[in-house]
Every structure is written in C-alpha cells, then in structure tokens.
C-alpha cells in the first residue's frame, strides 16, 4: 500500500469549480427531500453570515477546526499523517478539564496556562506511539493513530466513569464537573459563543505561517515533507524532524480539546466532539496544507456547519447534508483533471478570447506586431 502523499498547490479556479460542483450535488440531494435548493442555500447563507449571531456561530464552529486543522497541517508538512487528531483532542480535553477542576487554588493566568499546557502534554503523549511506529519501526502511522482514536475515546470515558464522575449524577452522559469559573475562556462579544479561543487560534496560524516560511526549523519541516531524501542529503535529521512534527501536531490537537472544554462546554463530556479531528484534517486538505489556506478552509467549513444547523431547524433537513457537500468539494478539489475533462479549459480560453476582442485596438496591434 502506497502512503506517499505530496500536496500540490490548489489553484483558485479548481477550488471554485469544486465548490460549484459540490453545491450542485447538494442541490440534487435537497431536491430529493422535496425542498427548493435555492431556498435551502439561502437559509444556509443566512445561518452562516446573515446576522451577528450567525457570524458568531460560524466562528464558533471554525475555532476547533482551526486547531485540529493546524495539527494536521503541521504533520502533513512534515510528511506525516496525523490521523489521530481526534484521540489527541479527547485526551487533551480531559486533561484540561481535570486541571480546570482540581487546580482551583491557582491564580487565574497560571491556571489557564496550566490547563492548556496539560492538554498539550496529553495530546503530545498520545502522538508518541504513532511517531515511534513511523520512525523506529518503519511502519505507517496513519492506521495505528486511527485505532488510538477509538482507544482514547473509550479510555477517557472509562476514567471519568471510574474516578471523576461528580456525585449524584445518574445521567447517561459521562461528564466531569464544571471547570473553575476563572478558567472559562471569555467571550469576545457576549452573549455570542465565540471565545478568545478563536483569537488564539488565529495567532497560532499566523505564527505557523511565518515559522514554516521564514525559519530554519520551518524549512527543515517543509523539506522533510516534500522530499525526505533530498532533505537528508542536505543534512536534515529527517527522523528527528518527523518525531518533532508529530509531537507538535499532537500538542496542538490537545489544545483543540482544551479550548473546546474551556470555551464552550466548560467540562469534559463524553462524545463532545462531532468529529472535529476528521473535519480538521479535511479543512487542512481544503487549504492545501498551508496555514492561511487552512484559515479559509476552516472558516468555510465553520460557515457550512453553522448554516446547516439553521437549515436543520428551519427545514428539517439533516445537518449531515453539510458533511456530504464538504466531502464532495474536497474530492472534486483533488480531481485535478476534472475541469479539463468537462471542458472548463476550453471555456476559459473562449472567455479570454472574448475579452481580448473587446480590448482597445492599440493593444492588439502591439501584440501582433
């Protein structure tokens, strides 16, 4: 099985075309439910951008994707597949929740930092095994990491059930008690649910971009991912880079769990993540594995999610439709030859030809001369 993957830059026109096709396919599904696609997409747009609370919802759903996607991006750039983001964010969330509850005596800033660091440490630890599998044992880390996701989810639930269930809870949800008040991330504009977690994520993305592009470490990471033999020849300790990249990725993924716990749910809840890890990986793919691309990808996916919730409330169409559309768009983005096949290139040439003919006569003469 060939697990080589080198990301080629995504052209804007490919992305736009893919979005169009994805929305078209979604429209077909909407028709099947007996609704008017234009109306439904209208709801979706309003749900994502139509009001202040919509925009807040979009940002709220984009935030975990920014962290998870950043984790995935860092790994991808280093040539590793961190498919274990989901598990790492779960252990990170539990760690943050526990520190949030039991560290109540600490001063506020220290407490917040402690929660985040605990989460990053937990995520990092959870990424160690896949890193070892790739570097020490020469196997592929993708599937063991995926298996660890399932292990993590069950392990966290088990730990809560055994040790951390608050008294008098007989409910079905395995959840810890609420974290201390001071650890809860403040909302940027109350009462909307967007917290400073979004701001931190944004800062991290900018940092990641500059690190990858302008620092030695970033260069080493990018080269290891693009062509590890070349990197090794150039003196890069490829295996060291791979391990560090994976551990860093795990740490960021853990932070994702922490921000979700500290900002939104205020406690660890079983199953709190609607596949943030997987969605983060998709957002990273959408963004061409570049930090700023990820920003756009995560915002797009957050918008679609926010919109789909409104659609579900107003028209009863399951929010899973958004998953289908998002996934189709990514498939179509990957299908490089699709636009060629459908004659988009000919269409483009035709359009360009039309534009040339309407240009002033002087310009044409210069070209033909």
């Amino acid at each position, binding site marked *: 099985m060939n697990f080589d993957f080198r990301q080629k830059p995504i052209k804007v026109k490919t992305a736009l075309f893919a979005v169009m096709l994805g929305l078209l396919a979604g429209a077909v599904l909407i028709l099947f439910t007996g609704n008017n696609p234009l109306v439904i997409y209208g709801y979706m747009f309003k749900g994502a951008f139509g009001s202040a609370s919509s925009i807040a919802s979009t940002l709220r759903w984009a935030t975990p994707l920014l962290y998870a996607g950043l984790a995935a991006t860092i790994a991808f750039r280093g040539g590793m597949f961190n498919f274990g983001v989901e598990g790492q964010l779960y252990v990170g969330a539990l760690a943050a929740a526990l520190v949030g509850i039991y560290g109540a005596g600490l001063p506020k800033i220290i407490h917040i930092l402690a929660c985040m660091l605990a989460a990053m440490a937990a995520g990092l630890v959870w990424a160690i095994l896949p890193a070892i599998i790739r570097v020490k044992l020469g*196997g592929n880390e993708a599937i063991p990491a995926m*298996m660890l996701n399932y292990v993590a989810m069950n392990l966290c639930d088990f730990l809560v059930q*055994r040790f951390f269930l608050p008294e008098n809870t007989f409910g079905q949800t395995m959840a810890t008690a609420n974290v201390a008040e001071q650890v809860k991330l403040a909302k940027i504009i109350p009462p909307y649910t967007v917290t400073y977690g979004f701001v931190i994520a944004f800062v991290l993305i900018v940092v990641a971009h500059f690190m990858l592009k302008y620092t030695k470490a970033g260069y080493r990471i990018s080269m290891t991912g693009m062509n590890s033999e070349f990197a090794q020849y150039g003196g890069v300790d490829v295996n060291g880079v791979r391990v560090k990249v994976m551990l860093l990725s795990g740490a960021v993924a853990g932070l994702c769990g922490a921000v979700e716990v500290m900002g939104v749910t205020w406690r660890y809840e079983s199953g709190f993540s609607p*596949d943030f890890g997987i969605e983060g990986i*998709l957002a990273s793919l959408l963004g061409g594995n570049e930090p700023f691309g990820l920003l756009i990808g995560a915002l797009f996916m957050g918008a679609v999610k926010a919109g789909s919730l409104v659609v579900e409330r107003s028209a009863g169409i*399951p929010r899973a439709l958004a998953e289908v559309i998002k996934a189709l768009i*990514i498939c179509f983005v990957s*299908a490089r030859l699709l636009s060629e*096949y459908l004659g988009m290139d000919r269409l483009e040439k035709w359009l360009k030809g039309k534009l040339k003919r309407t240009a002033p006569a002087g310009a044409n003469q210069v070209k033909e001369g």
Partner: protein
Amino acid sequence: MVNTWIIAILRLSAPILLCAVGSLFCDRAGVTNISLEGTMLLAAFMGVFGSYYSGSWIIGILCAVAAGVLASLFFALITLKFGGAELVVGFTMNVLLDGLTVFMLRSIFKVSGSLVSEKVIGVPSFTIPGLTKIPVIGGFVTDLNILVVLAFISVFLAHFIFKRTHLGLKVLSSGENPQAAATVGINVYGIRLLALVITGVLCGLAGAQLSLGYLSMFTEGMTAGRGFIALVAVMFARGSSMRVLLVTLLFGAAEMMSNYLQLFQYSSYLILMIPYLCVILLTLLQLILEQQGKKKRMISAREKTA
C-alpha cells in the same frame, strides 16, 4: 462452549474478511483504497433500505452490493479518471458516505441513531444437520449464513486467482510494475478498475452482513473502524490471502472476547478498546518481527560475503 465461540468468531470476522479480500485485490493491483469503511457503511444502509422496502433479504443483499459497487466506481472515477490523490479521496469518501448514510437515514426513515423495524428482513441462518454436537467442527456448521460462507469462499477463491490464473498474474504485475505491465499489453487501468469493482462487491457483502447478517438493523457509524482493520490485515498479510484469513480471524476473536466480557462486571469502555488495542499490538508485533528479519538477513549476508 468452544462451539459458541467459534460461531461468534465466524460471524464477526465475516465483514472484516470480505473487506480485507477486496482490499487485497486493490493493494495487489496498485490501488491504495482507504475508503472501505465508508463503502461498507453505505452498503450496510442500502441493505437495510432494500430489505425494508422489498421485504426480501435477497433484494437487501443486492442493494448492498450495488451500493458498494457504486461507491467504488465513484472512487475509480475521481482517482483513476480524474487524477485525484488516492489517499485524499479515500479518506474523504469515508466522511462523505458516513454523512450520506446519516442524511438518508434521517430524511427517508425519519429516525436518528438506529433503524430497527420488523420490516427489515435479515439473512436467514442455517445449520448443517448432524454435526452440531461435535466440538470444534460443530461450531463451523451451526448457525451459518450465506454471507459468512461467501466470505470464506472468497478467501480461497482469491488465493486460487492469485496463484493459478492469468487474471491473478495481471493484477500482481499491475501493482508490482505498472509500466512494465503496460508494455506487455496489460490494460493496467482496466485491471485497477476491475479490482475496485471486486472490492465494491465484497464490501457490499460485508455491509450486508453487518446490518442484515444476524441483526436486522442499521446504526449510524456501525462499521466502527472495521474497514481500517481490514486494511491492517492486508498490510500485515503482505499479499498472502491465507494470512489475511488468519489475521481477520484473530480480530474476530478479539471482538468476540470483547462482546463476551461485556456480560461480566468489567467496564464496558475498557472492553470496547480490546479490538483496537489488538490491531495496534499486531501492527507493532509485525513491524518488530520484520525488523528482526531484516537484521538477520543482513547479518547472514555479511557472513556469506566475509
């Protein structure tokens, strides 16, 4: 007691086995297809869908197989025809098909979580009379269904195809060295497409076994990573169909143990982890053994030339 265990192992291994044989074809043909999980899930849903609306488990199985083939053809279209990256498309298709099944479940059947209904007719099980009381052998002939039987037939069929037929050779060479194969006149594209169709059929049967085999219901996300476990089985097997069988039976045993232990007082969460931990342990074991093997070969080669 042993017989009950054997019955359970056979039943639980069947979906993984079917998927793994399909994945074997893809892998040998040079296609990296990680969309098995989603394909199996779609097939499981369509199996229930077909059975619900037709009242016949045969139609259910046919629907499941059709769904599997369609999913595989989509993968083939985007990857083979339009040059999409296999890993990206495969991974994304799992999300796509999971979302699609949830969407269809909730909009067609108006339920969420699971679909349980008497209208869903499951696959009937049969028993070969006479041998049931014998330990061990009895376990192999009691409470079988056609899908389990097909699963085991498929392994032996795959083994035969790869060892003895022209088709098998073509598949192996398409995967081993596609350019050389093409120069000899093998239609590599066609072979890969065929491998994907075969995978679609087998994953379709796997999905049918999951949702119609002994239970008659569909649950969101019911594949629970089995598609990936099948991939691990194929990676471990390194091309040998018999090894695929062995590994898959091991996973079936792990799952059976996990179900069995749930009857006791142990925490269900710990027990649910067992199959996944087994996969990881097996992967580690295989990699370590491979490393030892390489070292031994290097040492003996050095000794020979010394």
